[in-house]
């Protein structure tokens, strides 16, 4: 995974951009803080989301955590494996545990996101 260029938010989501599509998931730090994930409430394909808006929910045994849209756009895909295997978010947060893909109108909106190095600095201060 280290080969790919991930971007990060302060809400501990990661974003992987490919053309106009942004794949979104939660970071290893976030899944570890949350504990065993037992349910992911996914949006529907075609839903429009705005940057900063809560569009999905990840629940552990004890906690309910909103996932905020790192970019604006349309939900182009959801990770349906999470319906039966929400534990993928813990086991493989950056890969098999991805949550959605958002089709962006403006790919330039990722400019404000943090790089891996910036994010690592950020979580040291949390």
């Amino acid at each position, binding site marked *: 995974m280290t080969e790919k260029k991930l971007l990060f938010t302060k809400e501990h989501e990661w974003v992987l951009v490919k053309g106009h599509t942004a794949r979104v998931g939660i970071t290893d730090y976030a899944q570890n803080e949350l504990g065993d994930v*037992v*349910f992911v409430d996914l949006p529907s394909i075609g839903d429009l989301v705005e940057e900063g808006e809560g569009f999905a929910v990840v629940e*552990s045994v*004890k906690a*309910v955590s909103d996932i905020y849209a790192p970019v604006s756009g349309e939900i182009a895909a959801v990770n349906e494996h999470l319906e039966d295997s929400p534990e993928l978010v813990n086991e493989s947060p950056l890969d098999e545990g991805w949550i959605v893909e958002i089709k962006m109108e403006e790919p330039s909106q990722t400019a404000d996101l943090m790089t891996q190095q910036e994010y690592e600095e950020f979580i040291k201060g949390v």
Partner: protein
Amino acid sequence: MKQTPLAQVHRALGARMIDFHGYEMPVQYVGVLEEHRIVRSRVGLFDLSHMGEFELTGPGALETLSFITTNDPSKLRVGEIQYTMLTDKDGGIIDDILVYRIEEGFFLVVNASNTQKDYAWIERHLHNGTTLRNRTDELALIAVQGPYSAPLVEDVLPVSVGELKSYRFVDTTYKGHKIRLSRTGYTGEDGFELYFPNDLAVTLWDNLMEKGKRLGAAPIGLGARDTLRLEMRMPLYGNDIDQTTTPLEAGLARFVKFDKGDFIGRNALAAQREQGIGRKLVGFTMVDKGIPRQGYTLTNEQGEEIGHVTSGTHSPSLDHPIGMGYVPLDLSQPGTKINVMIRKKSARAEIVKGRFLNQKEGSK
């Protein structure tokens, strides 16, 4: 924040510590799901030293206890334990507690969140010739719970537990110190609770962990304690019962003895029994997706609000969401369809009878 004598041990074990009613307590070590499974299949150790312990002694102790609790302590012989409740004059539950009959009187175990409130309440209602002593700060408590709890306890303490029935206790010794061992717990599994002086805590914990290795024992945090008790539909004070609810509404009528003589709350509870309860604590399982959480609104089939979720979680043993809450009596029958409002969406649920988990299903 207060600490138990095992706080350093938990940290060394990698526990995540939280503030639980003023105590720094372990919420999980490796993960709630794994810890839950260990207790259902093997044996787990819980540090419950935050719980409150009182002693009520003297010639007025029985009279005092009978007047402030709903159950009948006169039925207890030395070595027996009773689940009971402190109620206020309106029948509201001040706390749910365990009463141990000891030679000198009674040993009371109360919820950590209620220790000060209970102490003040009991002190206010002491009959002549009764002494109340708060032993919370000098006693530690370790629970050993799970199908392999008996061999582990027998390996560490000089006792044979074959004769020790559920809700009974014995006083024994550990390294020359007095230790109280009861066959009680809050998990639905066979299990024991050990009360002893703080100084012994680290030695005894390490000894249990060492001897428990061959049985697959592990430390268990408060996270799994909650899922374990909820699968068994055991109420949690502060969630499912509190001073705005009565034992009759909570389905705890069998622990209220109206024929034992007067007690605080008796009139109110007798009137409620006469008139019938308006609402009842029920358990439900989800039909639609989603996890019910404390505070979520419950609605009827017409979408009208009928109550709230008091406890809810994803049941690790059933791999299914479960919850509890108060609903109007006419909607409390098993099989009744209700809805849980989860993030503004209505999710269907069905009221079920009894425990969520059949114990035999749970022990794999």
